[in-house]
């Protein structure tokens, strides 16, 4: 009989919460906000980590840039053949790309040039190259770019302003979505010739050269050989880029940690308040229940239901709010902390990353702790002699 769920105790617990409705509402709101904040931080971090991983995986092993007076200049395309002669290099591609500032919307687009017959240095470009019409000025744009252009009524084509002030019209032939939003969102892909024309880059020059090395262990050796060959260049390996990406991310994670700590601190203040004791009213109620024949486990069961109802409701509500905030509303304010101005100005959709571990972590950081904080003082009170409490 006693093993069955006693719905009268559940009902009593619900009524008990309703009797203290203002307190219950207050605790539920604070609890939900904390779960919301914690889960939003976790969701954003997970999404950006995922983006970062995708971005890093797509990076070339070595990037060679010409440096003059400490600034990045266009490099001679002829360097590609010299680099290909270095033992261990499997491919070297001269890239033509740059940032185009679209004043109307106040955003930067990343213009990337590709060649129809050239080996694509990014996997995601292979399909793009097959869809791009190289016979006329056309482009394939990222979803973020498409959105910005649509707002400015450039639905079928876009007029780029060249350095000499004349316009270059390029048709929008399609939109593309790469594995990583961070990477693709502000990207416009068109023929190298079009990019050269828009940025006034001559046929003998390129923005930089990306090099693939067959054996990962030889990357450092190949990089040093390139450096010897071209002392006026900056040779950046994938590891260097990973470190700088990671540094930015770690810095952002520091802010995350601060927010996380504040949330937890607030939560534990509530917990401390709960554990530190019951009001004389609550103690008396437990005493009365004991006096009329409730066992200690009946009292604890009732308190468990109270804690469970509040915490599970707040947990689910906080998580739902957070999912809507991060993935539907695109995490206004919080997203900027993690992404920052420099990476993107066009809208950025955080990819939905479902991580059961994150949900479990937030659950275990909140629900059982709160329930314990309800049960421990009640247990202390329930194990006292009832006479002592109600006198």
């Amino acid at each position, binding site marked *: *009989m*006693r093993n*069955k769920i*006693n719905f*009268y*105790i559940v009902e*009593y617990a619900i*009524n008990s919460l309703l*009797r203290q409705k203002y307190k219950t509402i207050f605790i539920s709101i604070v609890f939900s906000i904390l779960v919301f904040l914690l889960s939003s931080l976790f969701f954003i971090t997970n999404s950006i980590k995922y983006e970062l991983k995708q971005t890093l995986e797509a990076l070339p092993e070595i990037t060679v840039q010409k440096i003059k007076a400490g600034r990045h200049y266009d490099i001679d395309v002829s360097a590609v053949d010299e680099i290909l002669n270095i033992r261990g290099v499997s491919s070297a591609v001269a890239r033509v790309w740059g940032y185009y500032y679209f004043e109307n919307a106040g955003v930067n687009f990343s213009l990337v040039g590709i060649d129809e017959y050239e080996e694509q240095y990014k996997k995601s470009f292979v399909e793009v190259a097959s869809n791009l019409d190289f016979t006329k000025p056309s482009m394939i744009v990222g979803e973020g770019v498409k959105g910005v252009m649509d707002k400015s009524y450039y639905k079928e084509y876009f007029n780029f302003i060249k350095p000499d002030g004349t316009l270059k019209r390029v048709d929008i032939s399609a939109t593309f979505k790469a594995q990583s939003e961070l990477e693709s969102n502000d990207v416009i892909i068109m023929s190298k010739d079009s990019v050269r024309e828009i940025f006034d880059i001559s046929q003998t020059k390129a923005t930089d050269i990306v090099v693939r090395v067959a054996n990962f262990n030889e990357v450092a050796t190949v990089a040093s050989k390139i450096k010897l060959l071209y002392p006026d260049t900056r040779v950046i390996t994938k590891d260097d880029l990973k470190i700088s990406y990671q540094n930015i991310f770690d810095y952002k994670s520091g802010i995350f940690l601060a927010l996380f700590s504040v949330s937890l601190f607030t939560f534990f203040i509530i917990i401390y308040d709960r554990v530190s004791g019951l009001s004389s009213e609550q103690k*008396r*109620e437990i*005493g*009365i*229940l*004991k*006096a*009329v*024949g*409730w*066992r*200690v*486990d*009946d009292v604890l069961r009732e308190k468990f239901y109270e804690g469970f109802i509040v915490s599970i409701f707040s947990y689910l509500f906080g998580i739902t709010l957070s999912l809507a905030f991060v993935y539907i509303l695109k995490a206004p304010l919080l997203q900027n902390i993690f992404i920052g101005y420099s990476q993107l100005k066009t809208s950025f959709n955080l990819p939905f990353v479902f991580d059961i571990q994150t949900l479990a972590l937030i659950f275990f950081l909140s629900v059982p702790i709160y329930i314990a904080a309800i049960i421990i003082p009640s247990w202390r009170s329930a*194990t006292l*002699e*009832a*006479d*002592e409490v*109600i*006198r």
Partner: protein
Amino acid sequence: MVSLINVIKKYEVNENESVIALDKINLEIKEGQVVVLRGSSGSGKSTILSLIAALSKPTSGEVLVDGDRVSKLPDNFASDFRRHTIGFVFQKYNLIPTLSVKENIILPLVPMNLSEKEIKEKLQRVLRMFNIEHKGTQLVKSLSGGEQQRVAIARANINNPKIILADEPTANLDEKLSLSFIEIIKELKSEGKTIIIATHDPLFFGLDIVDEEIEIYQGKIV
């Protein structure tokens, strides 16, 4: 029915000091009797009731109810014993003010997980018995002292216990309500219940329904 054998009860004031509330009490109360424990405040009457109800344990000695040593019962068994055998009417009623009359009365039934029908039947019986049917949905805090006491008596009787303990039942009532309480006691006695009343109200002294009056003074039977 109820026996107290050499019962001593001490309350610890602090680490070095304790107060003797009961000093070697020996008492025998038979089934169906109405017994009045008389004495001034602090004499130890309420402590005796508390020990019989297993709400506290004696420092030494034994309390027996129906031959069972209730003074040695583990906490959970003591709760079961109270639920089935004892109906306690506390001096300050000990009702939960934010619950309704009905909710207060059925409190002892909640852990028993009875069917709704059984609960309804038991509730109707006591509501009728103590004439509070029309007050069922009202919050206890909105009731008068006399009504609150009737709710407390109804709660004490919901499980039809063998023993009713009443601690200063008329302390907060006027004479008319006190007389009405005595009528209730008569009715309960007629049902064969054992009733133990701790009081210093002279209204109970020499009453024909009272089988025995026991005077308590400074923790001892005089």
